[in-house]
């Protein structure tokens, strides 16, 4: 393999991995904190992508203008969904297992609703509006500008989230809720406000990934599903509630998929993802970074 092809594949793998990281971070918080097995997580990515695409189509402006308000809208949608559905589920579920099972079923319902609403509005076919797809050249290496932009934004978003969780009192409170829910309650951390906020943050992050993808790929109403699967694999790789672990797992999965598909065929993608999952679980059953 020549060097430039190698660099090409690494960039592609990092872009995919970065998107996985952003999607998985939100799902990790939702599942880790609230046992919400949000199988509709990828649908919020899809909604974010269509929302951005639709506004670009109408206004002709850069998609970057629309990503922040779209994230705010999804955050608010998350607060609403938590208030209407998941708060009730949490209050009526006798234990964590029941919460997982019930939220899974609710998630399937949300998935069908979201996909069909998108199909109703934008049609079932592919739509897309590539942005900044001109190549950028570094010496002999050529990369599409939009991919580079995606990479920079997801890296910045992941880093920002890690820093907030690591350094701020609010972030420590979120980690505290992940590690010892009763301990967190007893020091006065208010789960009634932080749980909905973290749920909404998850949707906003999925939307960010969707908005970025809308600059690079074609959109379909079912585009979110594979990202939910990838996010679940990433969480398993990195360890539940382990944010840096999820980021490392996402990059590993992105690179493995990209290289694997290049040397085999794009139809092998799912097989490769599950191969990575099974391989890691065989060698490190508690995830890559379990102590």
């Amino acid at each position, binding site marked *: 393999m020549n060097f430039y092809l190698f660099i090409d594949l690494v960039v592609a793998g990092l872009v995919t991995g970065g998107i996985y990281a952003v999607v998985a971070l939100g799902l990790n918080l939702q599942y880790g904190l609230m046992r919400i097995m949000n199988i509709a997580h990828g649908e919020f990515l899809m909604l974010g992508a269509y929302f951005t695409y639709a506004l670009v189509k109408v206004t002709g402006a850069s998609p970057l203008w629309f990503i922040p308000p779209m994230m705010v809208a999804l955050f608010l949608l998350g607060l609403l969904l938590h208030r209407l559905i998941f708060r009730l589920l949490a209050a009526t579920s006798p234990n964590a297992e029941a919460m997982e099972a019930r939220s899974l079923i609710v998630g399937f319902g949300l998935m069908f609703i979201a996909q069909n609403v998108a199909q109703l509005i934008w049609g079932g076919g592919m739509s897309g509006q590539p942005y900044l797809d001109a190549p950028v050249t570094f010496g002999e290496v050529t990369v599409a500008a939009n991919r580079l932009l995606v990479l920079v934004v997801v890296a910045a978003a992941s880093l920002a989230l890690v820093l907030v969780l690591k350094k701020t009192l609010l972030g420590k409170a979120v980690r505290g809720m992940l590690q010892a829910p009763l*301990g967190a309650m*007893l020091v006065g951390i208010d789960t009634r406000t932080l749980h909905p906020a973290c749920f909404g943050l998850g949707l906003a992050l999925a939307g960010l990934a969707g908005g970025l993808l809308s600059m690079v790929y074609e959109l379909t109403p079912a585009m979110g599903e594979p990202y939910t699967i990838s996010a679940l694999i990433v969480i398993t790789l990195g360890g539940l509630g382990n944010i840096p672990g999820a980021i490392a797992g996402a990059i590993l999965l992105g690179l493995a998929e990209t290289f694997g598909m290049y040397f085999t065929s794009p139809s092998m993608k799912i097989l490769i993802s599950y191969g990575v999952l099974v391989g890691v679980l065989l060698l490190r059953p508690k995830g890559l970074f379990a102590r």
Partner: protein
Amino acid sequence: MRAAQPPLPLPLPREGGGEKVGLELDVGDLRAGYGGLPVLHGISLIAPAGRITVLVGANGAGKTTLLKTLAGVMPPVSGSVRVDGEALSGDTPADRVRRGMALVPEGRHLFPDMSVRENLELGGYLATRAQREEMLDSVVGIFPRLGERLTQMAGTMSGGEQQMLAIGRALMSRPRLLLLDEPSLGLAPKMVDEMFAALRRINKAGTTLLLVEQNVFQALAVADFAYVLGHGEMIAEGAAWELRGNALIKRVYLGEAIAG
């Protein structure tokens, strides 16, 4: 701003006179349970301000349920809880922490993948940054061992050190009433002595303690008042020195030893 605050229970020491720091806890006919299954059948007790009150009783008598209900972790079915004569307003654990109550729970429930310092910081979650820093110094003063290990992950410490951290974390909210659920459970004898000595110091600074203990004789030795809880009901109460020789206490304690 500082003047409007209730007097600091710490920094230590604060022996003899001064302002009243500890809250008086008055529980009246409290009933509570899990999902319709009653555990407490009307408990009444008073933990006088600035004193150590110990609550003993067999496993399953409802001691942990009582403390969890007081801390706002589970809702009571009926009954009253008053601090300094005032009914508690608000029902969340955060409301109780703001009122000056803190619980050191059974099993500690520390944040295992966070450092000692981070655990302590979160203990002062509702305090201001300045208060947190001040309290951190006080807590390290009481438990110097924590000061030596501020960067160690809580989950990697010994049981005794974790218990010190659990107490330290609760102190970070500047509680005027500290509830402790079996703090000596599973500790080496030397650690138990150290912990009781620390509790005595915390109390000397004015904080009211309500202590649930299996370690009956050591608990009675530090306590001022004692209650014996049977199955969801109070079966004896009195001054700790009186109950130390009490046949009932001996029977409950021996029963416990045989059952355990």
